[in-house]
């Protein structure tokens, strides 16, 4: 009886703890938004973060985009050829990248490349008392450290996703047209006809913006909330990658359900 009560208590404590943490995270997120004014007045703070979150993620994003596009070209050609419609390869590659693979894969890569580094950096700044020192100098760390990183990463994410898609299309072109010999004219013209700016491209951009906000908010909160020890920072970094990857996939399903309903 006692062990049953104990396990019930354990579950209750975990639920309360989880809700409490979500509340703290929400407050943290709102404070970040409220304290963003300074970041925009001193835009060079954001530019620095665009460099470390965006520019430094370029290599992994561009190379992955290229390979994903090349694989799409190969696989797509195999399937389309069965139905004799290999000219539609351009459409297939472009739509899958712009609608889905670009935003989702770029965000997943971004979470592991930039998200983890944001968490580790903020966690270590906390562990080495740099954030406390800033507080003692009457500088709010949320305004000075957190908000610029938030906006830097949120601005970078759609650009990275767009570059991922562009490289993917290039990869599909290289494999489909240059290597296999699909007709170049129909590859591009079918793509041009099938991809709609509002339906496909804009929705893709909205997706990547939402993913950017989710990944960055999770990464910043995990870093800020990490216990100030080596173990605490390492766990927080892992949690950033796991939680934000799951968040990306869950959000993607919800957003897709609203955006593309086949009408």
């Amino acid at each position, binding site marked *: 009886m006692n062990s049953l009560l104990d396990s019930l208590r354990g579950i209750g404590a975990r639920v309360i703890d989880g809700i409490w943490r979500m509340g703290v995270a929400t407050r943290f997120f709102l404070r970040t938004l409220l304290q963003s004014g300074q970041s925009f007045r001193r835009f060079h703070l954001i530019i620095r973060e665009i460099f470390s979150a965006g520019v430094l993620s370029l290599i992994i994003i561009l190379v992955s985009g290229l390979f994903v596009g090349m694989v799409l070209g190969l696989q797509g050609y195999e399937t389309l050829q069965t139905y004799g419609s290999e000219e539609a390869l351009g459409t297939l590659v472009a739509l899958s990248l712009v609608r889905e693979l670009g935003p989702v894969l770029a965000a997943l890569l971004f979470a592991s490349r930039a998200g983890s580094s944001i968490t580790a950096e903020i966690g270590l700044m906390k562990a080495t008392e740099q954030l406390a020192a800033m507080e003692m100098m*009457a500088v709010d760390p949320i305004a000075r450290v957190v908000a610029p990183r938030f906006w830097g990463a949120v601005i970078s994410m759609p650009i990275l996703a767009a570059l991922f898609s562009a490289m993917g299309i290039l990869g599909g072109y290289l494999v489909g047209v240059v290597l296999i010999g699909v007709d170049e004219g129909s590859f591009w013209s079918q793509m041009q006809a099938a991809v709609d700016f509002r339906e496909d491209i804009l929705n893709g951009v909205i997706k990547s913006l939402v993913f950017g906000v989710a990944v960055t908010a999770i990464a910043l909160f995990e870093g800020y909330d990490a216990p100030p020890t080596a173990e605490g920072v390492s766990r927080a970094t892992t949690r950033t990658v796991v939680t934000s990857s799951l968040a990306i996939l869950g959000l993607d399903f919800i957003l897709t359900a609203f955006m593309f309903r086949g009408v």
Partner: protein
Amino acid sequence: MSDNLIEIRDLSFAYRERLVLKGINLTARRGQVIAIMGISGGGKTTLLRLIGGALKATRGVLEVDGVDMATLDQEGLYQLRRRMGMLFQFGALFTDLSVFDNVAFPLREHTDLPEEMIRDLVLMKLNAVGLRGAADLMPSELSGGMARRVALARAIALEPRLILYDEPFAGLDPISLGVSGNLIRRLTDTLGVTSIVVTHDIQESLRMVDYVYFVSAGVIAAQGTPDELRASTEPFVHQFVHGEENGPVPFHYPAPPYADELELAT
């Protein structure tokens, strides 16, 4: 303007249910160096954090520069902190900024001074701690003692009235230790600030401070000038000043009887 920069009356602080500080009374006059000493875990750092406004007292009065800390909101606290500098145990320099930019940080955040003037001010502060030549180094290139001196230059950048030191001597070699002690004394005298030093380095402290408070188990166990403490016969002070193993502070962490635990008793 009151003569006392810090006035603490009957201050208590509880962390969750645990009472960490009980009925503390402490005053620091302008221009003094005050040491807060005691064994680790005795509540010294908590007291320093209360003075810095990082924690709020559960009961009692804490006034810094005539301002009652209990009445301050965040804006008020930040206003007060511009008149305070704090030196953290390991310096807490911003690792992504150079030594120069670290010292310039509070000036750039809180003033609109032109860059040339900031440069002059930073070099003056760095010169005061003997590290003008290290301005272009990164924090990772500094030794522990140098990092703390840079942090001290940063703490005095805005010419504060109060400087808080958290364990400024921990882990320093004898030369750096002496240098740091002298620096604290000299800066206090030349800048006319008040310094609160949390430390357990008894010999260095007795050499340079004006007054010592011993915090033990959450209360002020003893206080006095260095000379009074050296002459004190009170068991706790005697044990602490002479670093003895036996005294009111036990060597052993509370444990069941030794013989029982080794199962020697039949």
